[in-house]
């Protein structure tokens, strides 16, 4: 088996809160310099930019498609995908939901107000109309992994917003981004724990990572390692 370092939560400059320097080439170069072998691009409510990062990587770095959905409870849920078509399907559904939410709050606004180049790209990270349960459901129904984002942070995390994980919501893992000190408490949730940087600037990339022990750095192997199948495993480091 091989060990590979993964940082599965990185924003590009499409996210309104990310630094302008977060362009595909710079993200790939920084990740490789820091010994990261797998990254996932998780912009707010869109999968739109992950292909560009993958093109920039040209095979030197494994780039997964992902997305950070803002649910109606203002909880961030990560979706990680192994299949581009499925990622796009979820991306479209989330985009529609965001249009609906923004339309309801800003009657009279055009549908595309939040897209880059639209009049209000800063609204891309706003809450959609999708609940936590719906978000996790649509991610998993499309073959993705649903991760409770930065569960150690008071803002925009499921524990910060609600104080508990609602019954019937089946996360595949929880993510920490702040420090490793809370890992032990999180074990009581009975879910795999991953660590990521939640990078909004180049400085962040690889700041917190997950180490995977698997046979090859592929999507299928990563899923099996998160689930702890066949001797594969992952841990935060």
């Amino acid at each position, binding site marked *: 088996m091989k060990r590979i370092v993964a940082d599965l939560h990185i924003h590009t400059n499409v996210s309104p809160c990310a630094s302008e320097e977060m362009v595909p080439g710079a993200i790939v170069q920084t990740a490789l310099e820091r010994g990261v072998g797998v990254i996932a691009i998780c912009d707010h409510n869109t999968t739109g930019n992950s292909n560009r990062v993958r093109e920039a990587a040209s095979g030197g770095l494994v780039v997964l498609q992902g997305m950070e959905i803002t649910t*109606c*409870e*203002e909880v961030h849920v990560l979706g990680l995908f192994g299949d581009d078509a499925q990622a796009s399907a979820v991306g479209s559904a989330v985009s529609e939901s965001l249009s609906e939410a923004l339309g309801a709050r800003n009657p009279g606004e055009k549908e595309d107000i939040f897209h880059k180049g639209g009049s209000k790209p800063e609204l891309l990270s706003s809450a959609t109309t999708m*609940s*936590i349960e719906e978000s996790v459901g649509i991610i998993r129904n499309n073959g993705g992994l649903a991760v409770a984002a930065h569960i150690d942070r008071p803002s925009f995390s499921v*524990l*910060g*917003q*609600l*104080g508990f994980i*609602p019954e019937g919501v089946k996360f595949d893992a929880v993510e920490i981004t702040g420090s490793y000190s809370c890992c032990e408490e999180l074990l009581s949730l009975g879910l795999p724990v991953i660590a990521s940087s939640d990078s909004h600037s180049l400085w962040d990339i690889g700041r917190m990572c997950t180490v995977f022990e698997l046979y090859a750095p592929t999507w299928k192997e990563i899923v099996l390692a998160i689930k702890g199948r066949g001797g594969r495993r992952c841990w935060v480091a």
Partner: protein
Amino acid sequence: MKLREIKQRLGLSTLSGAGEGGLGEDVRFGHSSDLLSDVLANAPAGCVLVTIQVHMNVIAVAMHAGVAAVIFSSGMVPDEEVKKKAAEEKLFLFSSQETTFTIVGRMYELGIIGAKR
């Protein structure tokens, strides 16, 4: 103050509840938050909660915290499933077109106060 009087004075629309008899409940305290973890930790039992959050978990948290009634501000209205759940729990849900700030201010004028849990 009776829930009935708060409803009348603030012009609230009733979305669900425990019927006319339940409106006779006395309320002394109010709480406002859109963070349910804060409601769980800090809302005093028997209070009226003012929030813009309208999803299903609001009902679960309100029941757990012993909230007497929830007022959804800024014209926010939950979907039918949420209203149904609240009706089962005999939890009063009201809606108002006013913002949270205005609703809280008007309740304070009526003598409803904040308190630590």
